[in-house]
């Protein structure tokens, strides 16, 4: 009996990392910030085992989602120099998007510092006993120039992003594939408003991993 149950963020059949908010942001007349993400799943749903239950969580994907929402609440304003993030929510098939009407700026320093301070620490303690480990945070530009062109990102903006991220580029896919425990990833992409006819666009990709050997820690 075939019972496919392979949720990946907003799509069962397709991974959320192929969801590109560019056209939506454009259609909104640049009145949106688009945040996209993914969470961990296995071939049959959330990864489940006795070991995970003892030293992890059977709903790791939902914890990923909640972490993302906290992250957005804490940081989205800084991405765009805005006062505070509004409500974000996610229900089932509902696409979750944080609204922002703004005059966004590309503010590499602030954003980068915040991001790395949260992710470079080796461990995060989170909700009591649940211990998670960041093996590596990867930050990446959009894959290549062709993709940038397709996304309609002006050259000026590419430069801005380049300054932002050039020191932190990693091979995204290879780092994810290198982990036997990996299944899914977070994919933040924010796009916002007009800034002197430029479109601010930041794409962060973070690899988030289970410890390789939970028992040995």
């Amino acid at each position, binding site marked *: 009996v075939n*019972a496919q149950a392979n949720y990946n963020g907003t799509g069962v059949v397709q991974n959320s990392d192929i969801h590109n908010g*560019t*056209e*939506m942001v454009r259609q909104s007349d640049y009145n949106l910030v688009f945040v996209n993400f993914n969470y961990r799943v296995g071939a049959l*749903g959330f990864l*489940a085992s006795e070991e995970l239950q003892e030293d992890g969580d059977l*709903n790791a994907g939902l*914890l990923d989602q909640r972490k993302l929402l906290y992250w957005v609440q804490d940081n989205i304003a800084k991405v765009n120099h805005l006062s505070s993030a509004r409500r974000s*929510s996610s229900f089932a*098939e509902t696409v979750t998007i944080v609204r922002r009407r703004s005059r966004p700026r590309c503010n590499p320093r602030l954003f980068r510092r915040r991001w790395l301070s949260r992710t470079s620490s080796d461990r995060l303690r989170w909700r009591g006993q649940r211990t998670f480990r960041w093996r590596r945070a990867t930050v990446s530009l959009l894959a290549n120039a062709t993709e940038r062109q397709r996304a309609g990102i002006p050259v000026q903006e590419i430069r801005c992003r380049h300054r932002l991220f050039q020191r932190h580029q990693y091979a995204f896919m290879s780092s994810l594939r290198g982990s036997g425990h990996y299944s899914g990833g977070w994919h933040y992409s924010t796009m916002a408003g007009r800034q002197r006819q430029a479109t601010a666009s930041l794409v962060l990709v973070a690899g988030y991993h289970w410890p390789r050997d939970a028992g040995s820690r």
Partner: protein
Amino acid sequence: LPVTTGPGTLVPANLYDSFEAGKFIKVPVLIGDDTDEGTVFAYNASTPEDVSQFFKNNYPLLDEAELDQINEAYPLMDPLPNHAAYFPSAAAAYGEATFTCPGNTIAETVASFFEPGKVWNYRYNVIDPGNVAAGLGVTHTFETAAIFGPGYAGSVADSYYTTNAAIVPVVMNYYISFMRALDPNVYRYPGTPVWEAWGDFGAGRGFRIKFETNDTIMEEVPQQQADRCALWKDLSNAMEV
């Protein structure tokens, strides 16, 4: 996918019980489904026994009487191309059990515990010739290409560039409006109908918008579907959902 892990944890109780008890975050909600949610998941069943086995494999705690109830609620339907006789029944049952009825329950409980005017439901019924010929109808997540725009959400059915192109700005702008104003109507696409909120019918009934190319209109959840959803609610503990 969520696993009930007990009191004090992220998922303290079965989801039906939690929603029915009002134990959820109260925010405006836009939620919906496709007409044939189950077709890409269901077993190609030939008999009612196949349907039972399919559900037993997915939900081992269902007993014979409960499996019979499912078969009674989903009798033989019109055949679909390329599929066995009871595939449409298996698909309808799985689609409603997994997606449509939980979605309706979320809509109803948000309406009752939060605000009946702040939850909007849809049924996506955009017909794609390829999917129809394949016997799949309007499949799970078929609306994704209309939300993000064709070419912005992975592979896309050809009809989104031709016969179904007109549905894209309709869907996309309701979504954009919901994101910007927490209401799908404020910035909706010109010429489209007001998307009425779910409302306070109760008993599993509510308003929903039916997305169809050049024919997007409001409709109500049919009584028959509400009845089938009541069955899934009854079975929710046995199904651990």
